[in-house]
């Protein structure tokens, strides 16, 4: 089966929503980007004092702390994902995937979902990996199922869930099963309804013509700048929600069974907590029902602000605007069903 050509022009990045000095650094045609960068850095060092004063209010300071810490926390996972995806792009031959996955796409989906068990990481790493798999000819449905399953069902996340809910191992079981089912369902849904042209992978330097190691570093450089840039957008959004949404406001909504599920599902999207930590946050949301907290754990690793931002960057806006809502709906429904049956 010939692999589809997916490389396309890069979608125009949405920088308008960024609150800080990013637009000042747009490359100029006449002045090279390196000169812009140098000027920007000199300016930043000179303005260091006023800049620190600017973020000295408690709310803004908390915002900065959360923003920086989301990025510091995500950096190792991003680096791991980028390095692994560069290895896939450069060192793993295309023929490997044809042998490793069942040739029928409908069977490749559950196989790829289960393969997520072996990838110990959080969601930031799996986006570039899934992009790399699609480039290497893996059917998009299987790569997307892997993208959804890997951050939710790996051993680290399941162990964290067991620890966060002492005496309630069924929470971890329900989380693993529900996440697996969502990943497989979305993969099959993609086979029925998805269109390959929705996915626009960003232009990447031609790796096939380069020597292997040069290609490896070129892939790393491109993916860190690309996925990392979108991660910054997501981290800024998550920090804003973290500071702006007061928790007391949520508590009043916890009493209603249906409302509490929707509130926690939306909160999971907005907070964008790493999948290795979200179980502890869910445990502390003790006024909410167990089912609604399970939905929080199923939705969080699959749809959240930083993921949507990174998916927009790696797969294009047309894709992300369809994929994220569909995943959200399926995750809420499946999570609720498992919660009602198992908890």
């Amino acid at each position: 089966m010939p692999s589809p050509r997916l490389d396309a022009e890069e979608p125009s990045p949405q920088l308008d929503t960024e609150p800080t000095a990013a637009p000042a650094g747009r490359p100029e045609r006449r002045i090279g980007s390196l000169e812009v960068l140098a000027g920007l850095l000199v300016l930043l060092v000179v303005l260091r004092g006023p800049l620190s004063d600017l973020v000295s209010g408690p709310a803004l300071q908390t915002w900065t702390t959360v923003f920086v810490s989301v990025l510091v926390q995500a950096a190792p996972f991003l680096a791991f994902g980028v390095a692994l995806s560069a290895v896939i792009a450069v060192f793993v031959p295309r023929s490997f995937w044809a042998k490793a996955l069942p040739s029928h796409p409908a069977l490749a989906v559950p196989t790829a979902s289960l393969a997520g068990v072996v990838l110990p990481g959080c969601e930031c790493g799996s986006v570039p990996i899934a992009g790399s798999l699609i480039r290497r000819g893996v059917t998009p449905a299987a790569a997307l199922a892997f993208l959804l399953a890997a951050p939710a069902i790996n051993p680290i996340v399941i162990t964290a869930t067991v620890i966060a809910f002492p005496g309630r191992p069924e929470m971890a079981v329900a989380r693993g099963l529900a996440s697996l089912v969502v990943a497989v369902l979305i993969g099959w849904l993609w086979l029925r309804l998805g269109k390959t042209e929705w996915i626009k992978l960003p232009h990447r330097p031609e790796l096939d013509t380069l020597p292997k190691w040069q290609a490896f570093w070129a892939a790393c450089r491109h993916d860190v700048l690309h996925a990392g840039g979108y991660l910054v957008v997501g981290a800024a959004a998550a920090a804003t929600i973290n500071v702006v949404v007061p928790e007391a406001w949520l508590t009043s909504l916890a009493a209603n069974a249906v409302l509490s599920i929707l509130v926690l599902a939306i909160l999971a999207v907005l907070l964008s907590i790493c999948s290795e930590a979200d179980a502890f946050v869910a445990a502390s949301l003790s006024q909410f029902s167990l089912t609604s907290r399970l939905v929080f754990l199923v939705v969080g690793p699959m749809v959240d602000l930083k993921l949507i931002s990174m998916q927009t960057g790696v797969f294009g806006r047309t894709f992300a605007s369809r994929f994220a809502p569909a995943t959200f709906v399926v995750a809420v429904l499946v999570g609720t069903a498992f919660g009602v049956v198992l908890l």
Partner: protein
Amino acid sequence: MNKLTQGVVLLLFGGAILRASVTDLYLRYVKEGLRPFLIATGVLLVAAALMTIWYSFRETPSDSGEHGHEHEHHGPGVGWLLILPVLGLLLVAPPALGSYAANQAGSVVAEPVGGSDYPPLPAGDPVELSLVDYASRALFDAGKSLDGRELSLTGFITTAPDGAPMLARMVLSCCAADGRPIKIGLDGRTPIDVPADTWVQLTGVYTARTIKDPVNNVDVAYFEVRTWQEIPEPKQPYA
């Protein structure tokens, strides 16, 4: 953004991560256990940056004329945003979460891990306890293992909704984005005229009084203060 600029941005990002992880700066944002991975990340990013810069210098002008031009247009413009975390880590270096974050979120539930069997306190007078350990023993064991012992707690001062000072510490499970406060109400000789976010060490005894955290209705234990003193922020600010 041409290749050389991309290399420099990568170098700054990797350098910032590396600097934060070899100093104690990273402890303000993430758990201690992440350090080896942060160092490895910094090394990988710096290596990618150096290789990029090396290859971009080695390219012949005719090469870069064609490819460089293309990159000026198609290079990831969003990569510029990586300057922001560099700025945050190298220039601003925001402090660890404090009383503002503690007041916004509800106290953690200090549930006993693995059964309700509390071992006796270690030797020492006063004996140092973490806030979570104290709250857990006070709330779920009715303070049985605390009775008759002089205790020492360390945290920062935050203000309860009624204006009274409380002792708090942020608990991280991964990074500051999931930081939740553990709060302890204060009775007895409470620190007076101490601004919020001041770090203090308290000694005192167990008291049975509890209140509900207004944010999430979780029980909050009280502590009867005998003496207190201001201390500098500990190296590891989170519990």
